[in-house]
């Protein structure tokens, strides 16, 4: 029987990066899951919580439990939002349903590392802080990428250093955030990669925003889009 999965698209991906969420749907369905997208979902409350608006984050955490409570598996294309649900929602009095970051779900629940993807590009991967340190996703995204046909994976130097996004940190401490971004971009450029990938569109929007400003010629692409890409239905750059 197909594994039933609820997609938590996250507000950022839903609004700015719909192609990532469509890629998750394609990928999970290809792997035999049935995917639902409860339309009542909005935001996990992370921005509010992390900026000091704990009280405002509570109703959003409650809403998350209400919307996803009936599902065995919730999958989010974001380590940061999955971390907020799993680690923080319980401190706000919620018992959230089992929520996974995409790479974790693929490797730990579905038990696959070769998802049958094809992506003929030189790629480097930024592991993102919350995936690494809140969720302990570890090497799973790299294992998935190593199994992608045609993909030339280059290791990112100092990969575990934060890119400087940090939610409202990027505007409250814009100069420091930019200094962190500069070093991250230097590491990305040192790899000679054409594509920078990550499991979080927030970090990708930050690093990608800097790379775009510099006309650096590196494209940010979410992990889900790489894994969804096949020889029959290959990833295409959106303009």
């Amino acid at each position, binding site marked *: 029987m197909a594994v039933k999965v609820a997609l938590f*698209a996250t*507000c950022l*991906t*839903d*609004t*700015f*990066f*719909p*192609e990532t969420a*469509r890629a998750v749907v394609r990928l999970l369905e290809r792997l035999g899951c049935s995917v639902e*997208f409860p*339309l*009542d*979902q*909005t*935001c996990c*409350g992370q921005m509010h*919580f*992390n*900026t*000091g*608006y*704990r009280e*405002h984050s509570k*109703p*959003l955490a409650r*809403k998350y439990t209400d919307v996803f409570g009936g599902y065995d598996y919730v999958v989010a294309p974001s380590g940061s939002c999955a971390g907020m649900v799993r680690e923080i929602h319980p401190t706000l009095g919620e018992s959230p349903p089992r929520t996974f970051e995409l790479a974790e779900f693929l490797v730990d629940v579905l038990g696959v590392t070769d998802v049958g993807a094809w992506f003929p590009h030189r790629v480097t991967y930024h592991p993102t*802080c*919350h995936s*690494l*340190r*809140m969720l302990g996703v570890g090497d799973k995204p790299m294992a998935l990428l190593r199994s992608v046909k045609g993909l030339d994976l280059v290791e990112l130097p100092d990969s*575990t*250093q*934060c890119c*400087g*996004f*940090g*939610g*409202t*940190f*990027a*505007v*409250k*401490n*814009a*100069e*420091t*955030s*930019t*200094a*962190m*971004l500069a*070093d991250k971009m230097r590491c990305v450029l040192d790899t000679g990669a054409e594509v920078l990938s990550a499991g979080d569109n927030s970090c990708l*929007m930050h690093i*990608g*925003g*800097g790379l*775009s*400003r510099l006309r650096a010629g590196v494209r940010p692409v979410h992990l889900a889009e790489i894994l969804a890409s096949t020889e029959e239905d290959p990833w295409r750059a959106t303009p």
Partner: protein
Amino acid sequence: MARNPVTWLGSPTFPKAAKTALADTQLRQNLRKATGTIRGRRAAAVAEMTDWEQLRVAGEQIKDDVLARLDTLLVQLEESVTARGGTVHWARDAEEANRIVLDLCRAEDAQEVVKVKSMATAEIGLNEALEAGGVHAIETDLAELIVQLGDDRPSHILVPAIHRNRSEIREIFQRRMGVEVSDEPADLAEAARSYLRQKFLTTKVAISGANFAVADTGSIVVLESEGNGRMCLTLPDTLITVMGIEKLVPSWQDLEVFLQLLPRSSTAERMNPYTSVWTGVTPGDGPQRFHLVLIDNGRTATLKDSVGRQALRCIRCSACLNVCPVYERTGGQSYGSVYPGPIGAILTPQLVGDLHDPLAASLPYASSLCGACFEVCPVRIDIPSVLTHLRAEVVAAKGRTPESIAMAAAAWMFASASRYEKAQKAGSLARFLAKDGKITSLPWPGSKWTSSRDVPAPPKESFRAWWRKNRG
């Protein structure tokens, strides 16, 4: 009440100070090199230990136990120290502590005192208070001496002169010691050694901090690398130790855990070169008068906060500074306090105890919440959680602000999927601001983002709109 000197008078808020520091290319270079080196060495020193995680848990539990029983353990410490011939003094705040130490120096008729590197005395501004009272304090730790001779401020807990490279240090030594010296580390160390040796042999009073105090024996422990501490702790007639009330361990056996955790976390050494332990006064051996000054200076108030109190577990190792991506770029002085970096961001505001203070209120935001600090902390202080906890207190202290109004509006919008969807549709109109798929300039506060980063143009169709059309 006098202001708490844990923050430096006149320091700007963190973002302002950071902006200035980020422009200092020499500082950036010095910090990148220094923190990069120590990070790698610490990781290697820790990787050797098979029971590191158990040690961290033990460190956390011992410290939590101490904090829970502080009232009785402190009294026990006082009894133990007194029984062994020492004198214990209690200081509510910096002002009281400084007065006690100054009076003790005056009673010894000391015009000069030698000092072992100590965060507690730096926190209370002891050197400045002694100077004002006519007593000159000489720092004997090499890095602390560099800061003192350079009329500078410290920028790191363990290596207060980490922001200086060796050519800058050479310049300071030549100017202040009046000697010719090269910028070779060995020559610089020799210059400091000659300068200090004479002070050790002639000065009658020494002042130290304490890494640990053992409640049941009254023993005080100082860990150091240079041997200057050993000189200060053994040669003078009188020893005055200033210690925060949280530095206790219940028994001698508990030191086993911390003497493994601390050196590997701070200097990446398996064992630090000098560990000095003394218990009261030993007739005919070492200082014959011993005073222990216990300082509160905001610690009892910190203890009241069930989330924030874990900051008092800190053993001042600096591992969190060395791995912090913010610290690496801004340096320590941007934090406006002797406690910089992630631990400073949670400890300083609590010791200040007033989140209406603009600097204190800015510190919990001096982090991207990347979590690298928590990962390395030898006593498992969950710094990111304390940061968000303190941010909530800052928000409460500030009351109504443009930000709080915007946040309330966003929360109201997110509370309903239909409001969220309407906002999404309205926001997607911003794509008309875009050129070539990106927005390069937004009005304030968006300008804070677009100053260095483009924003992707919002797509015509959100994911949910696509889903509704194709799958709904």
